[in-house]
């Protein structure tokens, strides 16, 4: 152990440790160990276990997902479904995938739910600090894109966040797509997530330049619905967010709810036998006996002072 004590220059390292730069591969070894342990326990247990979830490893909650974004004449429209999956189970039927980055910039996230949530929160706070420091009234979408891609590249794809970033700034409306490894593309319309192909087929047949807001919102809803119904990783409702070049924003959570279970629940005919009102059965006599707790009551307790 002594050979691993820190050398004389160690004190400088402490300051650097608080603000790490460059690649950090601390968890690679740990992850490899977990995989080994999982394989060992997985083969010991039933062979029928699927390779993606060998018993020991909990599967990350992923957002499965269909997320889309498009540019229309006066701004951008972002859309997302609301299903979060953990393996093949639906973990959250109505999660929120359109995250706030700045008053004029929002970001849809696909991939690991925690990664998309925390990454966007992190960049959101960085942008707010930047606005305070720079005296700027408004952040630019390209700033968010650059901050996100630099962080994601630093983590070499281990932060599993695939994002559709959209917003309006002084240079107009913009949509970016950002992949977990850090590559970005600036596009007039884009889709990501497991339902991206279903949504993209709707976009490819429907998108035109300079659409109106109604057309844009309608196309986004159709695209997300294509993902909701044709992709098993996406489901439940459609959330839509419109950001306009005039500075206004509309977040429509639950814009379309085709899978609402309330009508189904209401249609369940619960037998009246199960919900009886008090007094249905006549009371003939009532008698109250206070409960005895092991025969000891407060009256039985004598208080004596402690010997110190």
């Amino acid at each position: 152990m002594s050979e691993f004590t820190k050398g004389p220059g160690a004190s400088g390292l402490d300051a650097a440790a608080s603000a790490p730069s460059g690649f950090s591969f601390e968890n690679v070894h740990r992850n490899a160990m977990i995989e080994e342990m999982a394989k060992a326990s997985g083969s010991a247990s039933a062979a029928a276990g699927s390779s993606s979830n060998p018993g020991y490893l909990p599967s990350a909650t992923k957002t499965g997902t269909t997320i889309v974004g498009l540019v229309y004449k006066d701004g951008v429209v972002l859309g997302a479904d609301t299903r979060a999956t953990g393996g093949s189970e639906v973990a959250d039927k109505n999660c929120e995938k359109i995250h706030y980055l700045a008053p004029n910039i929002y970001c849809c996230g696909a991939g690991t739910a925690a990664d998309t949530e925390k990454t966007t929160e992190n960049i959101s706070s960085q942008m707010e600090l930047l606005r305070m420091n720079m005296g700027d009234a408004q952040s630019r979408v390209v700033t968010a894109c650059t901050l996100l891609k630099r962080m994601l590249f630093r983590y070499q794809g281990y932060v599993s966040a695939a994002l559709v970033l959209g917003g309006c700034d002084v240079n107009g409306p913009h949509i970016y797509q950002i992949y977990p490894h850090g590559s970005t593309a600036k596009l007039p319309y884009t889709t990501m997530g497991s339902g991206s192909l279903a949504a993209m087929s709707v976009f490819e047949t429907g998108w035109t330049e300079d659409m109106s807001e109604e057309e844009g919102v309608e196309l986004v809803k159709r695209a997300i619905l294509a993902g909701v119904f044709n992709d098993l990783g996406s489901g439940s409702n459609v959330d839509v967010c419109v950001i306009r070049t005039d500075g206004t924003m509309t977040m429509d959570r639950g814009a379309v709810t085709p899978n609402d279970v309330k009508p189904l629940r209401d249609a369940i005919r619960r037998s009246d036998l199960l919900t009886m009102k008090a007094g249905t059965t006549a009371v003939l006599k009532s008698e109250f006996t206070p409960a005895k707790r092991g025969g000891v009551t407060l009256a039985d307790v004598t208080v004596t002072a402690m010997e110190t």
Partner: protein
Amino acid sequence: MSAALSLAAGGAAASRAPHPNAANAASASQRTTRPIVTGTSVLGIRYRDGVMLAADTLCSYGSMAKYKDARRLQKINPKTLIGGGGEYSDFQAITELLRRNALEDRCTADSLYEEDGAEECAREVWNYLRAVMYNRRNKMNPLWNHLIVAGFSQNADGSTGAPFLGSVDKIGTTYEDDVISTGFGAYLATPLLREKWRADLEEGEARALLEDALRVLFYRDCRALNRIQIAKVTKEDGV
């Protein structure tokens, strides 16, 4: 024992010591491990008057667009069409097999004159293909195709029944529906076709729908071509 079940270890199978039961010892026991010359999606749609299939005419050699006028939709008998994606040589073998069966049916028919019920209807072809594909899968040597069969069913009295559209994949899974797509089409075309499908589609509408779907495939499928083949089966005119 896992080596015997691994498709990826096709080479390993050949280099193992000969199996005691080697009925095909002479053919060096090679198995299909991966497709070489491939066709991409095939789309099928049932409409008011019958069934329509569409596919592009490309066979790729890996990432090379090698054969740009390959016909991936073939007529089997006057009332049945098949389309296939995947390994083109396997598709040609299947087409040959089915045509051979159809010829035998014609030559051994009870009557020299054409009558309803003499040839296999599409549903019968589909069931036969299921048996063929599943059998090959059990020998761990699949025909690497996803096939679509289009035509009509046959009623009990031998007359032509309802329009039929079914698919068979390389492991023998069968599926019947109004709208079927194979390959990449399952992800890109099926959502579009399902959204727009109606039971009373006219021929023109069905064709336009298929062409729109193939256009999206050309945009987003790296192995697609912008030259297409369309085929239909109707009760009056056959294929």
